[in-house]
């Protein structure tokens, strides 16, 4: 998968690239709108990560340009503003998702994966573990075709762990994924533990396997061979 990162902040661009390369993406970097415009014109990309606040270029113009030469590409718009209006404009112009700074790289990856799943359709939408089946389209969990009742948050949490299987997810990454940009006053990620406890209880009714491992002091890991 070929990704173009358009980000004027060198430090951030480098970190995103490092992370995505590790995840086996083929990455190009554009630090200015001009560079991006040139790269878009000659290369076919699967994903374009675009910081809308470029100093030399109107980010929204760049989307228009890319839609012409790279009509297959998916856009994730990165914004430091998080402004509602930009959000709407971005979606209107065909941005597939948006991320407000600061975001965790894992969250970025999960957005890319979500778009990919949408792109490749149903065959990859069901993830199996043991006799469980997680349907990422219908957003529900089954055990031997028997539906398991999960709350919205429990589903979100479980699917995030499953999709990032064998990777340690820290509490903050999980909190960010579930609560997003909540403007709550406190920053208490311990509620994650409550949800994990509930999910484990529900899974253990069907299966003895301890799918979700606790990583002390950090978070959780979904283990599967």
């Amino acid at each position: 998968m070929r990704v173009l990162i358009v980000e004027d902040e060198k430090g951030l661009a480098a970190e995103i690239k490092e992370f995505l390369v590790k995840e086996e993406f083929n990455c190009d970097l554009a630090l200015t709108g001009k560079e991006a415009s040139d790269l878009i014109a000659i290369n076919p990309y699967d994903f374009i990560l675009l910081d809308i606040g470029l100093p030399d270029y109107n980010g929204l113009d760049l989307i228009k340009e890319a839609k012409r030469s790279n009509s297959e590409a998916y856009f994730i718009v990165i914004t430091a503003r998080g402004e509602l209006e930009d959000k709407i404009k971005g979606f209107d112009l065909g941005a597939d998702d948006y991320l407000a700074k600061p975001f965790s790289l894992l969250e970025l990856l999960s957005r890319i994966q979500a778009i990919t799943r949408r792109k490749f359709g149903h065959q990859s939408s069901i993830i199996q573990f043991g006799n469980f089946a997680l349907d990422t389209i219908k957003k529900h969990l089954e055990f031997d075709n028997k539906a398991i009742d999960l709350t919205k948050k429990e589903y979100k949490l479980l699917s995030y762990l499953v999709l990032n299987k064998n990777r340690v997810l820290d509490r903050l990454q999980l909190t960010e994924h579930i609560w997003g940009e909540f403007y709550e006053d406190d920053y208490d990620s311990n509620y994650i533990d409550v949800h994990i406890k509930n999910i484990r209880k529900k899974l253990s009714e069907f299966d003895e396997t301890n799918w979700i491992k606790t990583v002390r002091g950090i978070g959780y890991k979904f283990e599967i061979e």
Partner: protein
Amino acid sequence: MMNLPKLKFKSKLALFNALSKIIIVTALLFIVPWIVGEITIRDTDDLLIRKLDQVIELVDSLGIDEYINMDAEIKAFGSYNILKEEFIAIEQLDKDTSIDVIEYSQRIIDNELVEYRVLSYSIVKNGNSYLIEIGRSITTINRFEQNLKRFAFLFLLLIILITFIADVSFIQYLLNPFEQIVKKLKNTNHPSSFDYTTVNTKTHDFAYLDETIQGLMHKIEDAFNNEREYISNVSHELLTPISIIQSKLDNILSDKTIPDTDLLKIMDSKHTLGRLTKMVRTLLMMSRIENEEYLLTEKVNLNTIVNNVAEEIEDKIEAKELELKISLNNSIQAINGNENLLFILIYNLINNAIRYTQKGYIKIETALVNQRVVLIVSDTGIGILPENLPHIFSRFRNFSNQKDSFGLGLALAKKICDYHKIEIEVTSKIDQGTAFTLTFKK
């Protein structure tokens, strides 16, 4: 110093005017009768002199014999009208003396003692001296004087009334621009909402005052905008470096060779960075509200928001083993506002209630009070000390030892309320609980 009640400027001026007029009137009350008296006497005397002239003319043309019979024993003539208001008398004088006086004197006419103002004048005719006396009764003079006095007082009263009314309306007219300036200031609850149209006045002082206030308001507005922009810019600029640090930490964490002790330290840093992020985002949101960047045109159903918040916050209630009581009035009408902001408002209030409640329940009610939509969030928590109540909406005020809160939740809630023109009230009793009441505008 005596504590006088504070009066309006125009009332004071009117009062002063009235007082000065009363003083003048009192003075006139003493002076007018005297003047009127003087005028009447002079008038009467003039009348008497004129009559004397007529009598002398008559005597000259007709001869003294016409009036006085030389053969009679009493050489005198008298004439008076039946009401005894006036009399004219001519008599021969024995001695040759010259008399010319006007004085008060009493006469007996028809056995009645009558007081007269009498003009006595001597003339010489045919070698004899005669005394002419013309009198006018005091009663008549007094009646005339009374009439004059009455008229004078009426006139005085009328003048006072007219000038008083004129004074008051002129003061009102003069002070009108001043009142307009005060009204303009009173209607200004935000520097940007100040009405910069010049007040129409021909009074230099008020024009000057208006100009000075406008200058001041411009300065305040500039300072205000600068601060607003400053917060917005700082928050915005902070998000990019935070983003870089967070990405770096994420990349470090994905390295599986890192020892556990280092992992925990990195987690700690991430946690701190997370707090910083929330803080900056909240500040940014507050400054965006101040910049009026959110539209208030959505039709929002408050009950739906309450239910959404309740669903969102369920896990926190569960984790603290509290009860969430919801009592919704289904007849409340939709509100104009920003759904996202209202969600955050209610979320923050409930979140705050949960944080300070260890046992019992959190209650959310919607109701109609005087045709206005009211939302109440109450709890059975620790309560707020009375001395802290006025400060709970201030930024970075935190009255508990809770480490994971930075005191922006209620400040943001207040901002959202102000932006929506929602009245927010707090009542609290220590160890019994706190209630936030939101009253929405009609």
